[in-house]
Every structure is written in C-alpha cells, then in structure tokens.
C-alpha cells in the first residue's frame, strides 16, 4: 500500500528503518537530535543519544570521525547540514574517503553515508545556497546520488546505508522546505545506483536534469508542449555512477541534448555529459549540446539577484529552442 508523504519524511523513514534493521547503523552530525531541517527529527526518541550523536561544529573532523567509525565495523550516516560546508571536509571527502579502499588494496571499505542539503531560493545568501555536486565528481571511489521524489529519496538513502562504499546523498533544500510530496510504498524497498528514470517521454529533444531541476524541466516541457515541442525529461537520480545508457538511448531518438543543473556552468555536470555525448556519439547530435546551469557568479543576498541566478523553466525553454 502506498501512502503520500513528504520528501523529508521519506528520508526520515529510510534512516529509522535502517536503524531498526541493523544495529551497526547510527546517525551523526551537527544538531541531528533536534534536526535543523527536520530530516532526522524524532530519531533520538526511538534510538537514543548513543545512536543519534550530536557533534561539534567541525565538518572535516566529523567526517573523519565518521570515516573512522566506518573503518571499525559501523555504518554511520553523517549529516553535513549545508552542501557549502562539504568544502570544509574536502580533505576527507576527496583525499581519503573514496580512495581508502583502493590504497589499502581492499583491506578496508568505508560504508559511510553522507547526507547534505543543497540549493538556493531560501534567501540564505552566498554560502548557504550552493550546489557543489561537480566539485565532488572528480574524486574517485565516491558514489553521489540526488533524489527528486520521496520515493527515490527513501530507496536511494536505504541503498546508500547498505552500501559498502562511501555514498553522498544530495538533498535539495527546495524539496525539503517545499514539503514536496509523493507516493511511497509501506513495503520495504531499495533502489539501485546508476539508474536514471524518464519523467516524461518525448521525441524532439532530451533534457537531462537532476534533483529539483527535474521539476523546472517538467515545467518547461508543459510550456513547450503548448508550442508543439515534445521534450523527453530524464531524471538522473544518480550522478556517480551516471546512467550513460539512458542518455544515449534518448539522444538516439531525439538527436538533441540539453543538460540542466542548479550548480555553476564551468566544469559542471553539463560539461561532463556534453563531453560524453560529443566524444561517444557526436554523429547522433543534430545540434550543439546546450547547458543550462548557474552563472559563474556568487549567489547574491538580494532575492532579486538570487532569482536571476537560479536556472528555471524559462532558461530551459530557451535552451531547448536553441537546440532545435
């Protein structure tokens, strides 16, 4: 039986179920007992302070501590409250976490899940609003997922907690604060990494989006449909590994590719996907790949500037038309 719950409730359920199922799972992070945005709210009541651990404000060190616990038999679920603050933990994230299994010859795995909230639109200014996914894709050994629905959030987070590799689960603040709802089955399930989903089939152009941008892409699809343009919207769900086959099959059909992300354009996910398409199936492309992403500027404190910064359905509509 499916029920309708919010994005945040789905994350909360995923953690509660895994805490119940596996005594080696625990929650750690800044203020996770009270929970700043609500994802871990109430878990301390059922699982106690020993398994829901508040930490000092020290992102690199708490990431290291979570890694150490993962090295010694536990499955920590670490929260880095804002994705901007993952930059404070770059030493652990990029130098250690994803590389440990390899440089120890597989002697040690790091079954660590890191949840972090990204995205602008909350009027939080330059350093509480960024999408920095592309900063992390250069590091080997990490898995990076970004769900856009409650169903995906629960399934991917549960899979992350059970994974023997370090997984970063990116949670869009718009999906949390906007209390985005969706159907989630009561029954137990997990989702595999690296499988995209077609949110709307179409024949004229392929729009590859991730996280909250999937909703902007679907908005663009509605607007374009009124003009007789039929786009296909692919929700990546998983950034590393990326479902290259899904993108290929869609472009094989449409011949046109538009990438959409909330992060900045330079060296972004769009650059990676574009390079992939032009390297592997240039001949299928009927037009240059278009990238929709944030500009190379900081996020201004003014709501007017912030709204200009964030890619939206209008910028996607324009990009699709450039590709036609």
């Amino acid at each position, binding site marked *: 039986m499916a029920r309708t719950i919010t994005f945040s409730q789905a994350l909360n359920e995923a953690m509660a179920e895994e805490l119940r199922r596996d005594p080696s799972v625990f929650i750690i992070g800044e203020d996770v007992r009270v929970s700043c945005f609500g994802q871990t709210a109430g878990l301390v009541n059922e699982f106690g302070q020993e398994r829901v651990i508040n930490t000092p404000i020290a992102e690199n*060190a708490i990431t290291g501590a979570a890694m150490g616990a993962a*090295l010694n038999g536990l499955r920590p679920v670490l929260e880095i409250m804002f994705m901007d603050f993952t930059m404070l933990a770059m030493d652990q994230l990029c130098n250690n976490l994803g590389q440990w299994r390899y440089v120890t010859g597989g002697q040690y795995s790091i079954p660590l899940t890191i949840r972090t909230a990204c995205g602008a639109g909350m009027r939080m200014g330059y350093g509480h609003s960024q999408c920095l996914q592309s900063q992390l894709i250069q590091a080997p050994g990490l898995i990076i997922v970004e769900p856009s629905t409650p169903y995906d959030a629960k399934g991917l987070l549960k899979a992350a907690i059970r994974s023997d590799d370090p997984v970063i689960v990116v949670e869009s603040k718009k999906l949390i604060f906007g209390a985005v709802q969706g159907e989630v089955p009561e029954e137990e399930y997990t989702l595999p990494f690296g499988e995209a989903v077609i949110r709307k089939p179409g024949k004229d152009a392929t729009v590859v989006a991730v996280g909250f941008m999937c909703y902007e892409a679907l908005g663009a699809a509605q607007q374009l449909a009124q003009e007789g343009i039929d786009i296909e919207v692919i929700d990546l769900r998983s950034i590393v590994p990326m479902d290259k086959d899904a993108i290929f099959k869609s472009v094989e059909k449409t011949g046109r590719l538009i990438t959409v992300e909330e992060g900045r354009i330079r060296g972004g996910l769009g650059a990676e996907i574009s390079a992939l398409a032009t390297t592997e199936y240039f001949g299928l492309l009927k037009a240059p790949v278009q990238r929709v992403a944030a500009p190379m500027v900081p996020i201004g404190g003014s709501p007017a500037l912030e709204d200009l910064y964030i890619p939206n359905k209008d910028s996607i509509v324009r990009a699709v038309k450039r590709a036609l």
Partner: protein
Amino acid sequence: MSVDNNILKELYRRMILVRCMEDTHNKLLQEGKIQLMGHFGTGQEAVAIGVTGPLRGEDILFGTHRGVGEYIGKGMAPRDIWLEYMGKRDSPCNGKGGLHLCDRKSNIPGLVASLGSDFSIAVGTALASKMRKTGQVTLYFVGEGTCNQADAHPSMCMAALWKLPVVFAICTNEFCELSYKCDHIPTKDVATRAAAYDIPFNIVDGQEIETTYEATRTAVEHARGGNGPYVVEYKTFRMSTHFSGDPGTYVNREELEAWRKRDPIDLCKEKLLDKGILSEKEDVQLRGQVQADVDAAVSAAFAAPDPSVEDLFTDVYSGKGVI
C-alpha cells in the same frame, strides 16, 4: 619503574630491527635499488617501540610517515613492509599503498597522506570501539608539528566529550620537517594543550624504552578502563634528516652529537648488560640474525611480481570496475 626482563629484551630486539630496516632502506636508496624515499626515525626508536609495546593485537594504530618503528611495533612483518615499499602485487595493499602502510592483520587501518587528517579518523575508530564495546584502544601516534593541524582541536574535543578509548601519543623530535620546532610551536610542550579539554596528560623522556613503555601502558590502561582519552608527549631528537634527500644543513651539529650520546638502543643495551640478561656475544648474534632476516625479506620482496593493469582498476569500489 621496571619492565619485565623478557619484555625489555623483546623491545630491544624490535628497536634493533627498526634501525636495521631503516639503515637498509637508506643503503638501498644510495645503491639506486629502490625508488621510494625514506623518512627515517633514527634515534626515535624508543618512542615508536615504547608506544606500541603495551598494545594488544586488537588495538588500533594510526602511525606516522617517519620510519617503520610503530608499524614494526604493532606487529607488521618486515617482508610486508618491503613489499609495500617496493609496490609489489603481494603487499598488504596490492602495491597501492607505497609509503602509506596499512595492515589489517595488525589492525593498522592505513596512513593518510595529508598530515593530521587521521586525528579525527582515530577518534572515529575509538567511537566505534566504544559503541561496539570491543575493549579496543586506538593509539594515535603523531609528531609535534602535525599537532598544529586544525583537526587536532575538534578531535581532542570529541574524544573528551564522548570519553573515547583513544591515546594521543605525541613524538616531539625537535624538528617539523625542514625546520626546528621553535619555528612552529610557541610553547616548550605540546601535550599541555590537553588541559584545554580536561584530558589528562604526561610528558616523558623519549630515549629510555622503559619510560616510554610504562608511560604508554598507563595511558592505554586509562583509556581501556573507560576513563576517556589520554595524551602522552615523548621528548626525543630526530637524528636522521627529514627525508632521504635532505642534507640537513639546518641541523645544529653539536646538539646532534649530544643527543647521539643518548641513543635509545645504546641506553637499552647498557641496561640489559647491567641486568645480566644480555651478553655482548648474544648481542652480536641478535644483530646478525636481525640483519639476516631483513636481508631475506628484502630479497623476497625484490623477487615478487609487480601489479598489473587489472590491478589498476580493482578495489576502487566494493563492486567490480571503476565508475
């Protein structure tokens, strides 16, 4: 303060083995037979062997980049060290660790490249030990220079907050890479920083093996007893230079000569001779045996195969392949 005679003799053997391993590494470098540079810990053997001596097999060690002392002390086999240093397929890390030694058999979870980023990792292994009630102690062995890394502060803070079974063992060897300690640290001691977190600390001579061993044993027992972390600082002197290619022009020669008179191996030998538990003849035999064992391990490692292209792509993820 007195250590059991059999233990003392074994600690002496380990110190000789460490010195022999590092001298052999240096010789292989000079002969152009090995590519990996060395960061030797000559003169610091009583610290590395003293801090690991009281540990149990299940205890966890995070070591330093300086020499092989604590790795030998925790039980890593010389052959495995040479295989790793030479990047061979059969090393514990399948040739992927290099100078970053890791040996699961000995509960050594690996050596970070960025100095001090394992401060917090050690706190994490101790957290898991406490949560899982394993009775393990984590020993975090670190140089005084690395204690300036920012993560030293929240790591000690978390260890104290959560009363974790971790010992922070600080080897103060008067040098921070290519400069003297006084260029890095404004205070005489580093362990005094523990007071900021209400962590008990001890500052001891690093040349006498009995002293380093006993000070560590006290700290380890404190941590294992559920009393939280402990900091010990060992005062020693790096008689080698920062790395094998460093001529050490900045080292005060008179100071070096003065410290050489307190070589930890010589001090221990005198004690063993005084106690009548070692004779000059036995000492010669022991050193000969150690050198023969090291030479055999080196030869075996040279003969071992290199990793192949398949190894390049294994163990990135727990599943197969790379992404």
